[in-house]
């Protein structure tokens, strides 16, 4: 075929026709994905097919990391070991306090007739790589629906909230970081108890606390933890520290920037927290929605 003359009669569709055909097909896929969120099954199928290649391509990197680990100095290991022992001792003490507090809390909640906070399950995972897509802030974790991960679960590391699982494949899942554009986390200030929502702005290492009035009780260095009212993130996990506040009376809201506490850009171990559904049922969900249902209730 290589050295035969080009076919004279059977040339197939013209270049422009082929180009138009494939462009229209791509645009159709784009619209189906971006607007209607179809094609999850197709994505899953391709992901399963690509998975061996992905593992294959991560082999050399893993190998280098292993070799690097093998040649860690003895003194460093000893130091680390000592540090971990000390940390464990401290943690054990803290855990014991937590246990007694937990039982006390449960008792009090029973007395008050409050809902019990459900025990949450954790799936430990490891960040494989950060996503190549330069438009988003996402990482890929080595746990998928084969391990029980579901879309929407919260992901935390030892320092705080990392993000939320947005796409689950068979053996890996995609986590949207809190710094991704428009990724929202409901928070509460530890010092003042003020509730709000932080938004990612699409840059590493910066979050924005939006819709806070100019005179809101927020100071530099305030620790923001998850408020838990969204039902996704468990309450009390550190999210960010307020780093800069601009109060300008000309605007309705203060400009508050924060720094996330978790090391969201580095590779490491993370925990995927299962979202126990403990919200009360939506009273409007059962019968006719909208104001009509409200009226009937009155």
């Amino acid at each position, binding site marked *: 075929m290589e050295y035969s003359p080009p076919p004279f009669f059977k040339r197939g569709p013209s270049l422009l026709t082929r180009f138009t055909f494939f462009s229209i097909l*791509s645009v159709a896929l784009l619209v189906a994905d971006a607007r209607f969120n179809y094609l999850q099954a197709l994505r899953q199928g391709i992901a399963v097919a*690509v998975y061996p290649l992905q593992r294959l391509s991560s082999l050399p990197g893993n190998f280098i990391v292993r070799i690097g680990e093998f040649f860690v100095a003895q003194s460093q290991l000893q130091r680390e070991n000592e540090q971990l022992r000390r940390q464990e001792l401290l943690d054990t003490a803290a855990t014991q306090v937590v246990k007694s507090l937990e039982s006390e809390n449960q008792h009090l909640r029973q007395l008050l007739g409050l809902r019990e906070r459900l025990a949450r399950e954790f799936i430990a995972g490891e960040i494989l790589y950060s996503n190549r897509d330069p438009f988003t802030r996402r990482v890929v974790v080595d746990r998928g629906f084969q391990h029980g991960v579901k879309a929407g679960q919260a992901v935390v590391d030892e320092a705080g909230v990392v993000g939320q699982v947005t796409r689950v494949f068979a053996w890996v899942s995609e986590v949207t970081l809190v710094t991704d554009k428009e990724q929202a986390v409901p928070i509460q200030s530890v010092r003042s108890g003020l509730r709000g929502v932080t938004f990612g702005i699409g840059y590493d290492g910066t979050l924005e606390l939006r819709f806070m009035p100019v005179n809101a009780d927020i100071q530099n260095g305030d620790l923001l933890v998850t408020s838990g009212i969204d039902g996704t993130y468990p309450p009390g996990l550190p999210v960010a520290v307020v780093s800069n506040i601009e109060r300008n009376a000309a605007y309705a809201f203060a400009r508050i920037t924060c720094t996330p506490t978790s090391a969201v850009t580095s590779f490491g171990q993370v925990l995927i927290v299962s979202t126990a559904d403990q919200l009360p049922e939506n009273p409007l969900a059962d019968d006719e929605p909208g104001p009509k249902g409200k009226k009937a209730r009155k």
Partner: protein
Amino acid sequence: MNFDWLRAPPVGRAPPQEILLPVKTRYIALTLVSALVLDLFALPGVLQQIRPDFIALTLIYWVVYHPRRVGFLPAWFLGLIMDVADGSLFGQHALAYAVLMYLAILLHRRIVMFGMRHQIVHVLAILIASQLIMLGVRLMAGADFPGLMYFVPSLLGAAIWPLLFNVIRVPLRPRSHPDAV
């Protein structure tokens, strides 16, 4: 009438026309899969963001030098695979590769006539065009412009074009000297 001014300026020489072994379809598939592996390879931090798109480069090579061997279909499917691996919008890379194939086929007779330095410019134009398509798609879908770093992969890709050109040709060169008895 004199049409000399229509001719391309005589700067840079086209790479010498080598007599290569016939290209097997298996070899083309192998190069494309290797390019895919190179694209999937996890790199730390900034390196990840500036890695050139090897699939695009390999596609350009095959389309320019063997335009009847690689069609739109494999390019489009590789685009879909990249979309899934990248977690980008489904069809984004596919559309970009369709544009890339169109431009490469359109320009292939022209590109082979130029020397390496001028080929780089053509390749750069094609790569930038395909990246602009992706940028346009994402901007329409509501993303922010990710900064000028976004175009570094195209620059790097064009810069390694001569290297890729030679590496792909290594297994295609005849093993013994043609004049040897």
